[in-house]
């Protein structure tokens, strides 16, 4: 896997994926935005809070896992 092969592979990748042809927004999103602003903010479920607390405790006990955790975030 040298640099030349990487360049060739990137070219093949570019041809296979193709850029987005149309990136124009077709209509105004403000009415949807207004509806979203009118919604009440979602409450964080208690289970999520419990998992977050467990994660914090786990990181405190095993600080060595923090870099691996950050990498996967």
């Amino acid at each position: 896997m040298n640099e030349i092969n990487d360049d060739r592979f990137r070219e093949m990748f570019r041809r296979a994926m193709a850029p987005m042809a149309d990136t124009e927004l077709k209509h105004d999103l403000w009415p949807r935005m207004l509806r979203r602003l009118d919604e009440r903010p979602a409450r964080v479920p208690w289970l999520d809070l419990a998992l977050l607390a467990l994660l914090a405790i786990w990181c405190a006990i095993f600080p060595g896992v923090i870099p691996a955790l950050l990498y996967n975030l």
Partner: protein
Amino acid sequence: MELLEQFRRGGLEAFETLFRQHQGEVYGWIVRMVRNPALAEDLTIETFWRIYRAHARFDPERSFGAWARRIATNVAIDHLKSARHEVELPANVRAPAQADPGVHAETQAAIALAFRSLPAKLQAAATLALVEERPQEEIGEALGISASAVKSRIFRATRLLRKKLKRMGFEP
């Protein structure tokens, strides 16, 4: 400047003006990353929702567009992270509709599948740089990293993609 200051104070009218000015740009950036127009609209709304909630943290001395693009990038990456767990099996993957007919359909499907299974941050950098051919400085600004870090992510994405394809039986 006054508009940005009004927005920072939480003015809804200022937010509406900024929304109308920047919605197209934000949508265009997101659709390049997620490659799905309907989803990009949803994520544009999510981006502006986060922008609105963070109004007090905005610095009116800085560019609103660059700030919005940074938040849009985070929103798109969050989506790519969740979508990564829903990657389909090779037999169910269709080749990209607009792809080059010179590339074999099976290879296109394999590349698309392997690509969607890349870590979200690598996927975002590779899409913007290799597919959309955006400048590395622009990508770096949106991702909050340097241009050399962008280059490193593209390199890692390419290597990982090749490894994945090799495991799937393709020898690129």
